[in-house]
Protein backbone atom coordinates (compact mmCIF):
# COMPACT_ATOMS: atom_id res chain seq x y z
CA UNK A 1 0.00 0.00 0.00
CA UNK A 2 2.40 2.69 -1.14
CA UNK A 3 1.79 6.34 -0.56
CA UNK A 4 1.24 7.10 -4.24
CA UNK A 5 -1.58 4.55 -4.39
CA UNK A 6 -3.28 6.08 -1.37
CA UNK A 7 -2.92 9.58 -2.76
CA UNK A 8 -4.20 8.57 -6.17
CA UNK A 9 -7.27 6.87 -4.73
CA UNK A 10 -7.89 9.76 -2.35
CA UNK A 11 -7.79 12.29 -5.18
CA UNK A 12 -10.09 10.12 -7.30
CA UNK A 13 -12.57 9.72 -4.46
CA UNK A 14 -12.60 13.47 -3.80
CA UNK A 15 -13.09 14.31 -7.46
CA UNK A 16 -15.94 11.82 -7.90
CA UNK A 17 -17.54 13.00 -4.65
CA UNK A 18 -17.43 16.64 -5.76
CA UNK A 19 -18.69 15.78 -9.23
CA UNK A 20 -21.67 13.84 -7.89
CA UNK A 21 -22.56 16.61 -5.45
CA UNK A 22 -22.30 19.27 -8.14
CA UNK A 23 -24.33 17.26 -10.61
CA UNK A 24 -26.98 16.63 -7.93
CA UNK A 25 -27.11 20.33 -7.07
CA UNK A 26 -27.46 21.37 -10.69
CA UNK A 27 -30.02 18.62 -11.20
CA UNK A 28 -32.31 20.62 -8.95
CA UNK A 29 -31.90 23.59 -11.29
CA UNK A 30 -32.24 21.38 -14.36
CA UNK A 31 -35.43 19.89 -12.92
CA UNK A 32 -36.98 23.31 -12.53
CA UNK A 33 -35.82 24.60 -15.91
CA UNK A 34 -36.85 21.45 -17.80
CA UNK A 35 -40.18 21.36 -16.00
CA UNK A 36 -40.71 24.99 -16.96
CA UNK A 37 -39.79 24.47 -20.60
CA UNK A 38 -42.05 21.45 -20.88
CA UNK A 39 -44.88 23.49 -19.39
CA UNK A 40 -44.43 26.51 -21.65
CA UNK A 41 -42.80 28.86 -19.16
CA UNK A 42 -39.28 29.93 -18.18
CA UNK A 43 -37.81 28.54 -14.97
CA UNK A 44 -35.52 30.40 -12.55
CA UNK A 45 -33.71 33.09 -14.52
CA UNK A 46 -32.85 35.83 -12.01
CA UNK A 47 -30.06 34.28 -9.95
CA UNK A 48 -27.07 34.56 -12.24
CA UNK A 49 -27.13 34.14 -15.98
CA UNK A 50 -29.94 31.75 -16.84
CA UNK A 51 -30.46 30.97 -13.16
CA UNK A 52 -27.00 29.42 -12.71
CA UNK A 53 -26.62 30.37 -9.06
CA UNK A 54 -30.08 29.17 -8.03
CA UNK A 55 -28.73 25.92 -6.47
CA UNK A 56 -26.36 27.97 -4.33
CA UNK A 57 -29.27 30.13 -3.22
CA UNK A 58 -31.32 27.04 -2.44
CA UNK A 59 -28.48 25.47 -0.49
CA UNK A 60 -27.93 28.64 1.51
CA UNK A 61 -31.67 28.83 2.20
CA UNK A 62 -31.66 25.27 3.50
CA UNK A 63 -28.76 25.98 5.82
CA UNK A 64 -30.39 29.10 7.24
CA UNK A 65 -33.66 27.41 8.11
CA UNK A 66 -34.51 26.44 11.65
CA UNK A 67 -33.71 22.85 12.58
CA UNK A 68 -36.77 21.43 14.29
CA UNK A 69 -36.64 18.07 16.05
CA UNK A 70 -40.01 16.87 17.38
CA UNK A 71 -39.98 16.48 21.15
CA UNK A 72 -41.22 12.91 21.30
CA UNK A 73 -39.01 11.62 18.53
CA UNK A 74 -35.75 9.82 18.92
CA UNK A 75 -33.16 12.52 18.14
CA UNK A 76 -30.41 10.12 17.15
CA UNK A 77 -32.63 8.31 14.63
CA UNK A 78 -34.08 11.59 13.46
CA UNK A 79 -30.65 12.82 12.40
CA UNK A 80 -29.55 9.37 11.24
CA UNK A 81 -32.32 9.02 8.64
CA UNK A 82 -31.21 11.61 6.08
CA UNK A 83 -27.55 10.92 6.86
CA UNK A 84 -28.02 7.25 5.99
CA UNK A 85 -29.91 8.13 2.84
CA UNK A 86 -27.12 10.45 1.71
CA UNK A 87 -24.40 7.96 2.63
CA UNK A 88 -25.86 5.05 0.69
CA UNK A 89 -26.56 7.29 -2.27
CA UNK A 90 -22.97 8.53 -2.43
CA UNK A 91 -21.11 5.26 -1.94
CA UNK A 92 -22.90 3.78 -4.94
CA UNK A 93 -20.71 5.88 -7.20
CA UNK A 94 -17.54 4.10 -6.11
CA UNK A 95 -17.63 1.23 -8.59
CA UNK A 96 -18.63 3.06 -11.75
CA UNK A 97 -15.90 3.07 -14.37
CA UNK A 98 -15.68 6.62 -15.56
CA UNK A 99 -13.16 5.91 -18.28
CA UNK A 100 -10.33 3.70 -19.40
CA UNK A 101 -7.03 4.09 -17.67
CA UNK A 102 -5.06 7.33 -17.89
CA UNK A 103 -1.36 6.88 -18.52
CA UNK A 104 0.72 9.66 -16.95
CA UNK A 105 4.40 9.04 -17.35
CA UNK A 106 4.77 5.38 -16.41
CA UNK A 107 1.85 5.32 -13.96
CA UNK A 108 -1.43 3.81 -15.10
CA UNK A 109 -4.38 5.35 -13.26
CA UNK A 110 -7.71 3.56 -13.70
CA UNK A 111 -10.64 5.98 -13.52
CA UNK A 112 -12.61 3.81 -11.14
CA UNK A 113 -12.35 3.99 -7.41
CA UNK A 114 -12.74 0.27 -6.71
CA UNK A 115 -12.76 -2.43 -9.34
CA UNK A 116 -14.33 -5.23 -7.35
CA UNK A 117 -15.36 -8.55 -8.87
CA UNK A 118 -18.98 -8.17 -7.82
CA UNK A 119 -19.55 -4.63 -9.08
CA UNK A 120 -23.27 -4.81 -9.84
CA UNK A 121 -24.02 -6.78 -6.70
CA UNK A 122 -22.34 -4.07 -4.65
CA UNK A 123 -24.61 -1.48 -6.22
CA UNK A 124 -27.60 -3.66 -5.43
CA UNK A 125 -26.52 -3.97 -1.83
CA UNK A 126 -26.13 -0.23 -1.52
CA UNK A 127 -29.54 0.41 -3.06
CA UNK A 128 -31.10 -2.03 -0.62
CA UNK A 129 -29.48 -0.16 2.25
CA UNK A 130 -31.08 3.01 0.93
CA UNK A 131 -34.43 1.65 2.08
CA UNK A 132 -33.20 1.99 5.67
CA UNK A 133 -32.82 5.72 5.31
CA UNK A 134 -36.49 6.09 4.37
CA UNK A 135 -37.73 3.70 7.04
CA UNK A 136 -35.72 5.36 9.78
CA UNK A 137 -36.90 8.78 8.61
CA UNK A 138 -40.51 7.67 8.75
CA UNK A 139 -40.19 5.98 12.15
CA UNK A 140 -38.25 8.74 13.81
CA UNK A 141 -40.83 11.36 12.83
CA UNK A 142 -43.22 10.07 15.51
CA UNK A 143 -46.11 10.62 13.11
CA UNK A 144 -48.58 7.97 11.96
CA UNK A 145 -48.81 9.39 8.47
CA UNK A 146 -45.05 9.54 8.09
CA UNK A 147 -44.84 5.92 9.13
CA UNK A 148 -47.48 4.85 6.60
CA UNK A 149 -45.73 6.80 3.87
CA UNK A 150 -42.40 5.29 4.78
CA UNK A 151 -43.85 1.77 4.86
CA UNK A 152 -45.30 2.26 1.40
CA UNK A 153 -42.04 3.68 0.11
CA UNK A 154 -40.08 0.77 1.55
CA UNK A 155 -42.44 -1.85 0.13
CA UNK A 156 -42.27 -0.20 -3.29
CA UNK A 157 -38.49 -0.16 -3.10
CA UNK A 158 -38.06 -3.82 -2.21
CA UNK A 159 -40.64 -5.00 -4.75
CA UNK A 160 -38.85 -3.39 -7.65
CA UNK A 161 -35.42 -4.59 -6.58
CA UNK A 162 -36.45 -8.08 -7.66
CA UNK A 163 -37.25 -6.94 -11.17
CA UNK A 164 -33.90 -5.20 -11.36
CA UNK A 165 -32.12 -8.32 -10.18
CA UNK A 166 -33.80 -10.48 -12.80
CA UNK A 167 -32.82 -8.19 -15.65
CA UNK A 168 -29.26 -8.14 -14.30
CA UNK A 169 -29.18 -11.95 -14.33
CA UNK A 170 -29.99 -11.96 -18.03
CA UNK A 171 -27.25 -9.39 -18.59
CA UNK A 172 -24.85 -11.55 -16.61
CA UNK A 173 -25.59 -14.47 -18.89
CA UNK A 174 -24.59 -12.35 -21.87
CA UNK A 175 -21.49 -10.73 -20.44
CA UNK A 176 -20.22 -13.47 -18.16
CA UNK A 177 -18.95 -11.18 -15.42
CA UNK A 178 -20.38 -8.99 -12.70
CA UNK A 179 -17.51 -6.54 -12.64
CA UNK A 180 -18.56 -3.22 -14.16
CA UNK A 181 -15.12 -2.67 -15.66
CA UNK A 182 -15.34 -5.91 -17.65
CA UNK A 183 -18.85 -5.11 -18.80
CA UNK A 184 -17.74 -1.67 -19.98
CA UNK A 185 -14.69 -3.05 -21.73
CA UNK A 186 -16.75 -5.57 -23.64
CA UNK A 187 -18.88 -2.82 -25.17
CA UNK A 188 -16.19 -1.16 -27.21
CA UNK A 189 -17.37 0.65 -30.33
CA UNK A 190 -21.08 0.92 -31.08
CA UNK A 191 -22.52 -2.43 -32.20
CA UNK A 192 -21.28 -4.19 -29.10
CA UNK A 193 -23.47 -2.17 -26.76
CA UNK A 194 -25.64 -4.34 -24.56
CA UNK A 195 -28.78 -2.47 -25.50
CA UNK A 196 -28.86 -4.37 -28.82
CA UNK A 197 -28.44 -7.67 -26.98
CA UNK A 198 -30.94 -7.04 -24.18
CA UNK A 199 -33.71 -4.62 -25.19
CA UNK A 200 -36.37 -6.24 -23.01
CA UNK A 201 -33.98 -6.40 -20.10
CA UNK A 202 -33.27 -2.71 -20.49
CA UNK A 203 -36.97 -1.93 -20.45
CA UNK A 204 -37.47 -3.84 -17.21
CA UNK A 205 -34.35 -2.25 -15.74
CA UNK A 206 -35.30 1.30 -16.53
CA UNK A 207 -38.80 0.81 -15.11
CA UNK A 208 -37.34 -0.56 -11.90
CA UNK A 209 -34.79 2.26 -11.78
CA UNK A 210 -37.63 4.78 -11.88
CA UNK A 211 -39.24 2.99 -8.98
CA UNK A 212 -36.03 2.76 -6.98
CA UNK A 213 -35.41 6.49 -7.24
CA UNK A 214 -39.02 7.24 -6.21
CA UNK A 215 -39.56 9.19 -9.41
CA UNK A 216 -42.84 9.63 -11.23
CA UNK A 217 -44.71 7.59 -12.24
CA UNK A 218 -43.77 5.76 -9.04
CA UNK A 219 -43.44 8.72 -6.71
CA UNK A 220 -46.16 7.77 -4.26
CA UNK A 221 -43.82 8.35 -1.27
CA UNK A 222 -43.23 11.89 -2.50
CA UNK A 223 -46.75 12.70 -3.52
CA UNK A 224 -48.08 11.63 -0.17
CA UNK A 225 -46.11 14.47 1.27
CA UNK A 226 -48.26 16.87 -0.59
CA UNK A 227 -51.41 15.01 0.24
CA UNK A 228 -51.17 13.61 3.76
CA UNK A 229 -47.69 13.06 5.11
CA UNK A 230 -44.73 11.00 4.08
CA UNK A 231 -41.39 10.12 5.42
CA UNK A 232 -40.05 13.65 5.25
CA UNK A 233 -42.99 15.62 6.69
CA UNK A 234 -41.35 16.53 9.97
CA UNK A 235 -38.01 17.43 8.47
CA UNK A 236 -36.82 20.98 7.84
CA UNK A 237 -33.63 22.74 6.92
CA UNK A 238 -30.61 20.75 5.85
CA UNK A 239 -32.03 17.38 7.00
CA UNK A 240 -34.80 17.77 4.45
CA UNK A 241 -32.15 18.94 2.05
CA UNK A 242 -30.34 15.68 2.79
CA UNK A 243 -33.33 13.58 1.77
CA UNK A 244 -33.96 15.56 -1.39
CA UNK A 245 -30.28 15.59 -2.30
CA UNK A 246 -30.06 11.83 -1.74
CA UNK A 247 -32.82 11.39 -4.30
CA UNK A 248 -30.94 13.37 -6.94
CA UNK A 249 -27.68 11.56 -6.24
CA UNK A 250 -29.59 8.29 -6.58
CA UNK A 251 -30.79 9.51 -9.95
CA UNK A 252 -27.24 10.30 -10.99
CA UNK A 253 -25.93 6.88 -9.90
CA UNK A 254 -28.83 5.07 -11.56
CA UNK A 255 -28.20 6.95 -14.79
CA UNK A 256 -24.52 6.11 -14.61
CA UNK A 257 -25.25 2.42 -13.98
CA UNK A 258 -27.72 2.28 -16.86
CA UNK A 259 -25.28 4.00 -19.18
CA UNK A 260 -22.51 1.58 -18.16
CA UNK A 261 -24.54 -1.61 -18.29
CA UNK A 262 -26.53 -1.06 -21.46
CA UNK A 263 -25.20 1.88 -23.40
CA UNK A 264 -21.49 1.17 -23.44
CA UNK A 265 -20.31 3.38 -20.58
CA UNK A 266 -17.34 5.35 -21.77
CA UNK A 267 -17.28 3.84 -25.26
CA UNK A 268 -18.23 5.83 -28.30
CA UNK A 269 -18.66 4.94 -31.97
CA UNK A 270 -15.45 4.63 -34.00
CA UNK A 271 -13.35 4.95 -30.89
CA UNK A 272 -10.56 2.69 -32.13
CA UNK A 273 -10.59 3.85 -35.75
CA UNK A 274 -9.68 7.49 -35.25
CA UNK A 275 -6.09 6.75 -34.35
CA UNK A 276 -5.91 8.97 -31.27
CA UNK A 277 -3.60 8.48 -28.34
CA UNK A 278 -5.03 6.39 -25.47
CA UNK A 279 -5.24 9.34 -23.10
CA UNK A 280 -7.32 11.33 -25.57
CA UNK A 281 -9.62 8.35 -26.10
CA UNK A 282 -10.05 8.12 -22.31
CA UNK A 283 -10.91 11.78 -21.96
CA UNK A 284 -13.36 11.75 -24.85
CA UNK A 285 -14.85 8.58 -23.37
CA UNK A 286 -15.41 10.32 -20.05
CA UNK A 287 -17.17 13.17 -21.86
CA UNK A 288 -19.34 10.70 -23.74
CA UNK A 289 -20.24 8.93 -20.50
CA UNK A 290 -21.34 12.20 -18.96
CA UNK A 291 -23.35 13.03 -22.08
CA UNK A 292 -25.17 9.72 -21.69
CA UNK A 293 -25.71 10.35 -17.98
CA UNK A 294 -27.13 13.79 -18.69
CA UNK A 295 -29.42 12.34 -21.30
CA UNK A 296 -30.74 9.82 -18.79
CA UNK A 297 -31.25 12.51 -16.17
CA UNK A 298 -33.14 14.54 -18.77
CA UNK A 299 -35.19 11.43 -19.53
CA UNK A 300 -36.01 10.99 -15.83
CA UNK A 301 -37.29 14.56 -15.70
CA UNK A 302 -39.05 14.36 -19.05
CA UNK A 303 -41.06 11.35 -17.89
CA UNK A 304 -41.80 13.00 -14.56
CA UNK A 305 -43.58 15.91 -16.17
CA UNK A 306 -45.45 13.79 -18.70
CA UNK A 307 -46.81 10.64 -17.08
CA UNK A 308 -49.35 10.68 -14.22
CA UNK A 309 -48.48 8.66 -11.16
CA UNK A 310 -49.59 5.15 -10.36
CA UNK A 311 -51.98 4.29 -7.58
CA UNK A 312 -50.45 2.10 -4.90
CA UNK A 313 -52.21 -1.12 -5.91
CA UNK A 314 -51.44 -0.52 -9.58
CA UNK A 315 -47.81 -0.01 -8.59
CA UNK A 316 -47.62 -3.27 -6.66
CA UNK A 317 -49.42 -5.08 -9.46
CA UNK A 318 -46.90 -3.80 -11.96
CA UNK A 319 -43.94 -4.74 -9.84
CA UNK A 320 -44.95 -8.25 -8.88
CA UNK A 321 -47.29 -9.47 -11.61
CA UNK A 322 -45.81 -7.83 -14.67
CA UNK A 323 -42.13 -7.03 -14.27
CA UNK A 324 -41.09 -10.27 -12.53
CA UNK A 325 -42.69 -12.54 -15.16
CA UNK A 326 -41.17 -10.31 -17.84
CA UNK A 327 -37.79 -10.57 -16.19
CA UNK A 328 -38.03 -14.36 -15.98
CA UNK A 329 -39.19 -14.56 -19.59
CA UNK A 330 -36.22 -12.41 -20.53
CA UNK A 331 -33.87 -14.83 -18.78
CA UNK A 332 -35.42 -17.84 -20.53
CA UNK A 333 -35.25 -16.14 -23.92
CA UNK A 334 -31.66 -15.09 -23.36
CA UNK A 335 -30.74 -18.62 -22.39
CA UNK A 336 -32.40 -20.07 -25.47
CA UNK A 337 -30.69 -17.48 -27.66
CA UNK A 338 -27.26 -18.26 -26.21
CA UNK A 339 -27.68 -22.01 -26.77
CA UNK A 340 -28.95 -21.48 -30.30
CA UNK A 341 -26.09 -19.13 -31.06
CA UNK A 342 -23.60 -21.68 -29.78
CA UNK A 343 -25.03 -24.50 -31.85
CA UNK A 344 -25.77 -22.78 -35.13
CA UNK A 345 -23.60 -19.68 -35.38
CA UNK A 346 -20.27 -21.13 -34.32
Amino acid at each position, binding site marked *: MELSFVIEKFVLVTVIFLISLTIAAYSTLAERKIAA*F*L*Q*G*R*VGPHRAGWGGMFQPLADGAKMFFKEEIIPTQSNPFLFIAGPSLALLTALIGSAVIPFGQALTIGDKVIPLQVADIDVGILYIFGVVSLGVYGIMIGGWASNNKFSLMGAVRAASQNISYEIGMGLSIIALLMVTGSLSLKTIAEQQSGFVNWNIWAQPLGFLVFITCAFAECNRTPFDLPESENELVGGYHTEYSGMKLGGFLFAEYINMFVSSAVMATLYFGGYNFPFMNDLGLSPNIITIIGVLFLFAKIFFFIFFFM*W*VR*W*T*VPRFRYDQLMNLGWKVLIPLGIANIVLTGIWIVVKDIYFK
Partner: protein
Amino acid sequence: MESLSNRKKVIEQKPMTFAERIYLPVILKGLAITFKHMFKKKATTFYPEELRPMSENWRGLHSLKRDENGKERCTACGLCALACPAEAITMIAAERKKGEEHLYREEKYAAVYEVNMLRCIFCGLCEEACPKEAIYLDGPFLEADYLRKDFIFGKDKLVEEPLKP
Protein backbone atom coordinates in the same frame (compact mmCIF):
# COMPACT_ATOMS: atom_id res chain seq x y z
CA MET B 1 -85.76 6.89 -20.56
CA GLU B 2 -86.11 9.63 -23.16
CA SER B 3 -83.39 12.26 -23.23
CA LEU B 4 -84.51 15.92 -23.21
CA SER B 5 -81.92 17.21 -25.64
CA ASN B 6 -79.86 15.14 -28.00
CA ARG B 7 -76.59 16.11 -26.46
CA LYS B 8 -75.80 13.02 -24.43
CA LYS B 9 -73.10 10.68 -25.63
CA VAL B 10 -72.93 7.04 -24.62
CA ILE B 11 -69.37 6.13 -23.56
CA GLU B 12 -68.06 2.84 -24.86
CA GLN B 13 -66.09 0.74 -22.42
CA LYS B 14 -64.33 -1.71 -24.64
CA PRO B 15 -61.66 -3.91 -23.04
CA MET B 16 -58.15 -2.60 -23.70
CA THR B 17 -56.18 -3.95 -26.62
CA PHE B 18 -52.70 -5.34 -26.04
CA ALA B 19 -51.07 -2.15 -27.25
CA GLU B 20 -53.18 -0.16 -24.83
CA ARG B 21 -52.47 -2.46 -21.92
CA ILE B 22 -48.74 -2.16 -22.04
CA TYR B 23 -49.10 1.66 -21.92
CA LEU B 24 -45.84 2.13 -23.78
CA PRO B 25 -47.17 3.52 -27.09
CA VAL B 26 -49.35 6.02 -25.23
CA ILE B 27 -46.45 7.05 -23.02
CA LEU B 28 -44.27 7.62 -26.07
CA LYS B 29 -46.97 9.72 -27.70
CA GLY B 30 -47.27 11.75 -24.52
CA LEU B 31 -43.53 12.23 -24.39
CA ALA B 32 -43.56 13.52 -27.96
CA ILE B 33 -46.30 16.03 -27.13
CA THR B 34 -44.43 17.28 -24.09
CA PHE B 35 -41.21 17.52 -26.02
CA LYS B 36 -42.83 19.69 -28.67
CA HIS B 37 -43.74 22.17 -25.95
CA MET B 38 -40.09 22.81 -25.26
CA PHE B 39 -39.77 24.59 -28.56
CA LYS B 40 -42.93 26.64 -28.47
CA LYS B 41 -43.12 30.28 -27.37
CA LYS B 42 -43.04 30.75 -23.59
CA ALA B 43 -45.90 32.45 -21.83
CA THR B 44 -43.81 34.14 -19.15
CA THR B 45 -43.86 37.93 -18.74
CA PHE B 46 -40.46 39.21 -17.62
CA TYR B 47 -41.65 41.65 -14.94
CA PRO B 48 -40.46 44.39 -14.28
CA GLU B 49 -38.81 44.75 -17.68
CA GLU B 50 -42.01 43.81 -19.50
CA LEU B 51 -45.46 44.75 -18.27
CA ARG B 52 -48.70 43.00 -19.02
CA PRO B 53 -51.16 45.25 -20.87
CA MET B 54 -53.83 46.66 -18.56
CA SER B 55 -57.37 47.73 -19.48
CA GLU B 56 -58.35 51.39 -19.75
CA ASN B 57 -60.20 51.40 -16.47
CA TRP B 58 -57.37 49.90 -14.45
CA ARG B 59 -56.87 51.59 -11.07
CA GLY B 60 -53.29 52.24 -9.93
CA LEU B 61 -51.69 54.57 -7.41
CA HIS B 62 -53.45 57.74 -6.29
CA SER B 63 -52.47 61.20 -7.48
CA LEU B 64 -53.87 64.53 -6.37
CA LYS B 65 -54.43 66.68 -9.45
CA ARG B 66 -53.89 70.35 -10.20
CA ASP B 67 -55.98 72.66 -12.38
CA GLU B 68 -54.89 74.61 -15.50
CA ASN B 69 -53.19 77.33 -13.44
CA GLY B 70 -51.11 74.90 -11.44
CA LYS B 71 -53.13 75.21 -8.23
CA GLU B 72 -54.03 72.15 -6.15
CA ARG B 73 -57.64 71.11 -6.54
CA CYS B 74 -58.04 69.30 -3.21
CA THR B 75 -59.96 71.31 -0.60
CA ALA B 76 -59.77 68.74 2.23
CA CYS B 77 -63.54 68.31 2.28
CA GLY B 78 -63.15 64.74 3.54
CA LEU B 79 -65.61 63.08 1.16
CA CYS B 80 -62.95 60.68 -0.07
CA ALA B 81 -62.07 59.71 3.49
CA LEU B 82 -65.74 59.15 4.21
CA ALA B 83 -66.27 57.09 1.07
CA CYS B 84 -63.21 54.89 1.58
CA PRO B 85 -64.41 51.45 2.72
CA ALA B 86 -61.03 50.61 4.23
CA GLU B 87 -60.59 53.97 6.06
CA ALA B 88 -57.25 54.44 4.36
CA ILE B 89 -57.34 58.25 3.87
CA THR B 90 -56.73 60.80 6.60
CA MET B 91 -56.22 64.56 6.25
CA ILE B 92 -55.70 67.74 8.19
CA ALA B 93 -57.15 70.92 6.66
CA ALA B 94 -55.59 74.39 6.77
CA GLU B 95 -56.56 77.93 5.76
CA ARG B 96 -54.97 79.63 2.75
CA LYS B 97 -52.80 82.59 3.81
CA LYS B 98 -52.32 85.88 1.95
CA GLY B 99 -49.37 85.00 -0.28
CA GLU B 100 -50.42 81.48 -1.22
CA GLU B 101 -53.12 82.19 -3.86
CA HIS B 102 -51.09 80.59 -6.64
CA LEU B 103 -50.79 77.33 -4.75
CA TYR B 104 -54.34 76.43 -3.79
CA ARG B 105 -57.65 76.98 -5.58
CA GLU B 106 -59.92 77.73 -2.63
CA GLU B 107 -59.47 79.01 0.85
CA LYS B 108 -59.31 75.57 2.42
CA TYR B 109 -56.64 73.10 1.48
CA ALA B 110 -55.16 69.87 2.82
CA ALA B 111 -52.03 70.57 4.81
CA VAL B 112 -51.51 66.90 5.57
CA TYR B 113 -53.06 64.25 3.29
CA GLU B 114 -52.07 60.64 3.93
CA VAL B 115 -53.14 57.41 2.24
CA ASN B 116 -52.23 54.14 3.93
CA MET B 117 -51.42 51.92 0.94
CA LEU B 118 -51.61 48.77 3.03
CA ARG B 119 -55.25 49.49 3.76
CA CYS B 120 -56.19 50.78 0.32
CA ILE B 121 -58.06 48.26 -1.81
CA PHE B 122 -57.91 50.37 -5.01
CA CYS B 123 -61.67 50.36 -5.35
CA GLY B 124 -61.86 53.89 -6.76
CA LEU B 125 -64.71 55.09 -4.50
CA CYS B 126 -62.63 58.11 -3.45
CA GLU B 127 -62.22 59.01 -7.13
CA GLU B 128 -65.98 58.78 -7.60
CA ALA B 129 -66.77 60.74 -4.42
CA CYS B 130 -64.47 63.73 -4.97
CA PRO B 131 -66.52 66.87 -5.90
CA LYS B 132 -63.46 68.79 -7.08
CA GLU B 133 -62.10 66.06 -9.42
CA ALA B 134 -58.94 66.18 -7.36
CA ILE B 135 -58.01 62.55 -6.79
CA TYR B 136 -57.54 60.02 -9.57
CA LEU B 137 -56.23 56.47 -9.49
CA ASP B 138 -54.10 56.58 -12.59
CA GLY B 139 -50.63 55.85 -11.24
CA PRO B 140 -48.49 52.76 -11.68
CA PHE B 141 -48.57 49.51 -9.75
CA LEU B 142 -47.76 49.69 -6.04
CA GLU B 143 -44.14 48.64 -5.45
CA ALA B 144 -42.89 46.48 -2.59
CA ASP B 145 -41.10 47.88 0.44
CA TYR B 146 -39.72 46.67 3.75
CA LEU B 147 -41.27 48.64 6.61
CA ARG B 148 -44.94 49.29 7.34
CA LYS B 149 -44.41 52.99 7.95
CA ASP B 150 -43.01 53.43 4.45
CA PHE B 151 -46.39 52.49 3.03
CA ILE B 152 -48.18 55.56 4.41
CA PHE B 153 -47.88 57.88 1.42
CA GLY B 154 -47.89 61.54 2.33
CA LYS B 155 -48.69 64.55 0.17
CA ASP B 156 -45.23 65.42 -0.98
CA LYS B 157 -43.91 61.93 -1.26
CA LEU B 158 -46.04 60.18 -3.80
CA VAL B 159 -49.64 61.30 -3.66
CA GLU B 160 -48.95 64.55 -5.52
CA GLU B 161 -48.32 65.17 -9.19
CA PRO B 162 -45.12 67.04 -10.12
CA LEU B 163 -45.25 70.79 -9.52
CA LYS B 164 -45.61 72.04 -13.11
CA PRO B 165 -48.35 70.09 -14.90
